[in-house]
């Protein structure tokens, strides 16, 4: 048997100031040329484990680290720079990790750091781009690429340095099924040629068939580790949410189209009605226009054609439309959770007594009562999301728009979250098909610039 590329034994890790361990007692081995899939819900520890394997943890992150990690014969802790280019990484959100302006410069960055000649760099960049089907994209600006194309650029940048171990965090997140299949085929071919691939991925339907082995994480622990053919994803349990009969039309869209200046249309010809009592899920891969659609409904953007009519008014002391941004941190502006929750009722001109009543009620509903004196930015990601949501629902909005409320929440929490919302109409975006199917009364799928109704 070939020597393992990676040996992890009894690994535990707690982030600095973390309330509990992010990883606990993790053990596994990965052999050369394997496609090794790390699976698990959001927050289960997949990304943390990848950060360990690329050396960022513990060398650059601090925290409490224990156990043994050996990657390509090196014992941890090792600084990430010491294992480059043998180990290359593709991060979860390529948009945040891309360093250059053009595709060529991005893919060439690692090669420049290795001191290759311009000729060799050009050759390797061309090869890497070809391997991800992006030949001819060299001079394109990264800001002009779709999410999926950026993801492939990130993959090309990782492949260009010819690593022995490739670590990829959610490489399929922004890809349509065909492109995702193509990327997985590329990874499988590379693995067959000796490259070891470890990928953290939640789209198991697309990745499982290409993986040799699976490590399924739950709450930072290994729940399953073995051949992918033996793996059955655990069933997710969702509480049932009450369903109301759809009432009057609250939002009416007619021939709606939207395009950013100088770019093609995100969607066109959208004619839809949203009614009171509906809980609508917007489905589709990242970058398909879900966020843009919610921003249009909230009035943050103007449609390029068609019209949006909101056929209701806000009662006194209430907001008409509330929006939870995809990045809830952009909504936190106060020095305490209490002040944050009180912000909207203050702006609605409510009495101090009414503000206190609403804050108390919402804090209880969202399990925030113990944090009212805390600084919002000192809370966990999931808690910050609940604070941001709370700061909207203390304004009792009639229409509530939620952009990815499932982020950093397990299904049970998501269901609880949706159950607490008392708005007449709730529209939420998610990439989680099951969450959409179970928790929504109506599902809309974004595909190729169109929005299709999904029969549940």
């Amino acid at each position: 048997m070939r020597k393992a590329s990676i040996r992890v034994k009894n690994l535990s890790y707690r982030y600095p100031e973390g309330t509990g361990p992010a990883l606990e007692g993790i053990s596994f081995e990965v052999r050369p040329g394997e496609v090794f899939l790390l699976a698990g819900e959001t927050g289960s520890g997949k990304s943390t484990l990848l950060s360990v394997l690329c050396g960022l943890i513990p060398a650059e992150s601090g925290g409490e680290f224990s156990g043994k990690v050996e990657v390509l014969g090196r014992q941890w802790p090792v600084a990430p720079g010491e294992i480059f280019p043998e180990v290359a990484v593709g991060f979860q959100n390529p948009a945040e990790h891309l360093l250059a302006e053009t595709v060529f410069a991005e893919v060439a960055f690692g090669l420049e750091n290795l001191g290759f000649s311009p000729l060799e760099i050009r050759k390797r960049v061309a090869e890497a781009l070809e391997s991800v089907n992006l030949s001819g994209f060299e001079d394109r600006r990264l800001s002009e690429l779709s999410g999926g194309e950026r993801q492939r650029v990130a993959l090309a940048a990782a492949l260009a340095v010819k690593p022995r171990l490739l670590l990829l965090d959610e490489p399929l997140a922004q890809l349509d099924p065909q492109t995702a299949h193509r990327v997985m085929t590329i990874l499988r071919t590379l693995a067959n040629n000796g490259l070891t691939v470890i990928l953290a991925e939640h789209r198991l339907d697309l990745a499982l068939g290409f993986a040799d082995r699976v490590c399924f994480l739950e709450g930072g622990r290994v729940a399953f580790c073995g051949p992918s053919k033996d793996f059955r994803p655990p069933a997710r349990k969702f509480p049932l949410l009450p369903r109301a009969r759809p009432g009057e039309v609250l939002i009416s869209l007619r021939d709606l189209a939207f395009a950013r200046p100088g770019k093609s249309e995100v969607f066109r010809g959208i004619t839809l009605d949203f009614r009171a009592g509906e809980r609508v899920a917007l489905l589709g891969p990242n970058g398909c226009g879900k966020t843009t659609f919610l921003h249009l409904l909230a009035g943050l953007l103007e449609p390029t054609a068609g019209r949006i009519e909101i056929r209701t008014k806000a009662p006194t002391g209430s907001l008409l439309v509330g929006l939870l941004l995809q990045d809830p941190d952009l909504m936190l502006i106060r020095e305490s959770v209490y002040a944050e929750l009180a912000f909207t009722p203050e702006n609605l001109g409510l009495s101090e007594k009414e503000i206190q009543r609403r804050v108390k009620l919402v804090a209880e509903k969202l399990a925030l009562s113990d944090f009212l004196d805390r600084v919002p930015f000192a809370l966990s990601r999931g808690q910050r999301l609940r604070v941001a949501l709370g700061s909207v629902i203390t304004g009792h909005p009639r229409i509530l728009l939620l952009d990815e409320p499932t982020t950093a929440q397990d299904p049970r929490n998501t269901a609880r979250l949706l159950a607490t919302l008392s708005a007449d109409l709730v529209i939420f975006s998610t990439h989680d098909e099951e969450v959409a199917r179970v928790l929504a009364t109506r599902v809309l799928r974004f595909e190729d610039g169109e929005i299709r109704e999904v029969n549940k």
Partner: protein
Amino acid sequence: MNTRKLHPYTKFGVSFLVSGLSVILDRPLSLAVLTSLALVLLLLSRPGRQILKTYLLLTVTTVWGIMVSQGLFYQEYPRTVLFCLIPPGEHFAGLCFIKEGFLYGLIQSLRLVAALSAGLYLVTSTPQEAFFRAVSALPLPRGLTLMAVSAVRFLPTVAEDLRLIRKALRLKGYRPLKRGILYTIKVELSVIYPLLSQAVRHSRSLADALLTRGFDPLSPSRRLFLSPWPRPEKILTVLLLLLGLGVFVLKVLFWLYLQEVLYVESLRPLYALVRNFL
């Protein structure tokens, strides 16, 4: 002639010269000439309509803002009162426009406009990739040049974040001045919290990407994929920088003469040149 096509290093040199001269020069005429040259440079690069609109807005508000404020609040002597908004009273010195203040404001605003025009020319006429490549190739550690480049690159992201934060505030019922000036100031200032949190997150992501891609902040710069600097432009840039150095030396000599530290009879024509034109 299209100044857009000049090599980034030539543009750096010209911008550096204009910025330097705008600090060294004192006479309104010479500053006006410098500002005009910088403006011609900008116009010859054929900037878009939006850039010109922004430029006009910035320059007009800068020039008039500084001139009016200096005209009103000039404290030096002599003073020539042009007219008074509030005439002086028994216990009040009045609020009057002072001619010397206007002139002083004009000089200060010309300095700003000259540097602004040159900077805008450099930034708007150079493709981003070429600009970043040129900065990265400067003889400085890569840690510094990459930081400078990243700071510029993330400006649009910060602007988009700021737009979203303000829209989110509006959706929460916030309207500036509706609940008083103090409340408004407090809310407007608090926008800094989410912006800082985003900046920290972006920095962290950037650092992770750099650490895992073999980046060494102390390594020297590399001139890869930067187009060669044409010889005529190189010579022109050196001559221009020498001209700037010459003006600087003249100003120093003149200052030494004024301070009665050094006086050279044969330099009298140069002293006159500095006194009247520089």
